[in-house]
């Protein structure tokens, strides 16, 4: 007999969690849910319980405190996953406060064991014991008593043919709590505070027998319960780059496609960098409008203007007629994974071919401060994930015109994108004029011209080069000195 035991994986009912778990929750596993008060432990436990419990697979939920059991029922009902009909048919709450009075843990253990034997549940949840034990003993002995109890409970729970959860705020990572060794899975819920923002994060510190996604995963608690923003898998189609020539997409700006060497290669990411008012959003809207004209759907994540007061008429029309879908990115304290999930969901829903992120600067401001330090890494992940979806992406980026140094983005993001267009202001004859250039198109010939352009009702209108001027990129070009021989003639 060499066949390994087959472990069934249960769908937790928590969006994104099964992905982080590496395919679901192993049946008959013994799990810890740890975290500070308010971190969402009970909500997570309830959500999993309501998803998995049925008359055939009943659940027992042990609580310790008296009145708070009522409060728990009261508040958990606010989540859409709460199902009153399941209470007493598939789910039984059992209150252990009477056994726990005086801190007699042996009685608590006996009662739990007796109830489990009597009911034969498929799921068992044991909520926090800390308060009881702390009340019944001095600080030092309480800790050791608690550790002993939890370990004993852990061993018991492992022996039941049930998927079990122990919930508590009493675990600290530094103590090598013996129950960590016994547990098959450890869910750690955290709240990361920085300035005024709070971001919830989940870490699977351990899950036996399967490859989980490592790291901290952001999640949100809404009226539907917890949603985990699992990272997207790495781009699978990266290798195909550079093989057969890609079809090209038109930008919709007359002349710009020629500058790009025949349009923007399909699946590329394009960064449009320029100072405020240089027409980045207009270029982005034109790009989407051109797609719509060819029957392609688009998605835009706009961090700049409120959609209802969008001054850009082109974009407003595209949103109205449904050829472009707006990703609502106004939630506070966003994480890259959350925005990525929103984007990917929208892209798949409308089978979008063109995606616009307007702008990276606004996006950075929309992120919770805790993610800003890792903005470049996160952005690289975003670009890779969008590439994996096969869409062509246009991102705009505010570029402070310094004139003394030539930069394409404030983040050093230039290397991540496949193509770059830079826009700048220049001063000529006491007027502020605009020029743009294609700086890069990966694997393709492109124009090196610096072209003047204007913005009218139809969008961007490319003009001529300014061959008689030099030093354009310094912002204050000078007229080239006329060669002596010519003036004499």
């Amino acid at each position, binding site marked *: 007999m060499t066949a390994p035991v087959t472990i069934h994986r249960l769908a937790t009912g928590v969006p994104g969690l099964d992905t982080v778990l590496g395919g679901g929750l192993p049946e008959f596993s013994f799990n810890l849910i740890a975290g500070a008060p308010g971190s969402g432990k009970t909500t997570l436990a309830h959500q999993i319980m309501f998803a998995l419990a049925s008359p055939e697979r009943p659940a027992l939920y042990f609580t310790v405190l008296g009145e708070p059991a009522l409060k728990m029922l009261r508040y958990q009902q606010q989540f859409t996953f709460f199902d009153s009909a399941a*209470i007493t048919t598939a789910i039984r709450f059992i*209150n252990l406060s009477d056994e726990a009075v005086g801190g007699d843990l042996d009685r608590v253990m006996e009662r739990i064991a007796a109830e489990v034997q*009597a009911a034969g549940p498929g799921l068992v949840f044991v909520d926090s014991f800390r308060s009881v034990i702390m009340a019944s003993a001095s600080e030092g002995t309480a800790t050791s008593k608690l550790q002993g109890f939890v370990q004993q409970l852990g061993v018991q729970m492992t022996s039941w043919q049930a998927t079990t959860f122990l919930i508590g705020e009493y675990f600290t990572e530094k103590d090598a709590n013996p129950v960590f060794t016994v547990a098959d899975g450890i869910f750690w819920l955290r709240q990361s505070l920085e300035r005024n923002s709070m971001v919830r994060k989940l870490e699977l510190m351990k899950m036996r027998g399967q490859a989980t996604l490592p790291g901290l995963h952001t999640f949100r608690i809404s009226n539907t319960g917890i949603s985990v923003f699992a990272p997207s898998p790495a781009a699978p189609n990266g290798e195909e780059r550079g093989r057969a020539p890609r079809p090209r997409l038109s930008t919709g700006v007359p002349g710009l496609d020629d500058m790009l060497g025949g349009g923007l290669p399909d699946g590329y990411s394009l960064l449009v960098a320029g100072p405020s008012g240089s027409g980045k959003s207009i270029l982005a809207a034109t790009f989407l409008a051109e797609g719509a004209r060819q029957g392609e759907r688009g998605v835009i994540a706009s961090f700049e203007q409120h959609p209802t007061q969008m001054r850009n008429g082109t974009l407003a029309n595209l949103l109205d007629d449904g050829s472009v879908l707006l990703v609502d990115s106004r939630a506070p304290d966003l994480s890259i994974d959350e925005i990525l999930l929103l984007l990917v969901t929208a892209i798949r829903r409308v089978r979008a071919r063109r995606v616009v992120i307007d702008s990276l600067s606004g996006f950075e401001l929309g992120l919770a401060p805790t993610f800003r330090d890792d903005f470049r890494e996160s952005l690289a992940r975003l670009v890779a994930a969008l590439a994996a979806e096969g869409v062509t992406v246009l991102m705009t980026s505010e570029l402070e015109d310094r004139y003394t140094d030539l930069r394409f983005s404030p983040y050093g993001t230039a290397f991540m994108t496949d193509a770059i267009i830079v826009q700048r202001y220049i001063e000529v004859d006491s007027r502020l004029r605009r020029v743009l250039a294609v700086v890069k198109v990966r694997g393709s010939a492109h124009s090196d011209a610096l072209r003047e352009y204007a913005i009218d009702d139809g969008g961007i209108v490319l003009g001529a080069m300014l061959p008689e001027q030099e030093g354009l990129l310094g912002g204050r070009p000078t007229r080239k000195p006329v060669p002596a021989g010519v003036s004499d003639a």
Partner: protein
Amino acid sequence: MTTADSRRIATALARRTGRGGDVRQVADAIVALWRDIERQLTPIIGQRGVAALHGRSLFLTARVHPWLAVAPDRVALAMDLDALRAAVLQQDAAAAMHGCGDLFTSFHDLLSSMVGPALTDRLLRDVWDPPTSGTPAQEPNG
């Protein structure tokens, strides 16, 4: 609390006391109903949780029926049904039925305000409308 709920409680009480019962039968029926409630709710909210709700509904109902002012002054560990029974026996059968009907209604309301009418109905259904008369409100496990 809907009128339907009050009527349901009154019907349950009448069913337990039987026709033309004297006050002793009424007292027995009331205590039996409280035992059913306790059996149904203790597993979920604990003995103390039930005692707290019971004490609160006694306090509220005593405003209209002062003879029900038997709620303990301090936090109770369990319901004091002996005290309630003694108070009931001081009344005639009709007054006892009326007062305790209001008491159960108040308890039902209180629970409903905490966990909502749907869940309250589910938790107390077997108390007010027992599946078959004569069987315990909650079937034994296993």
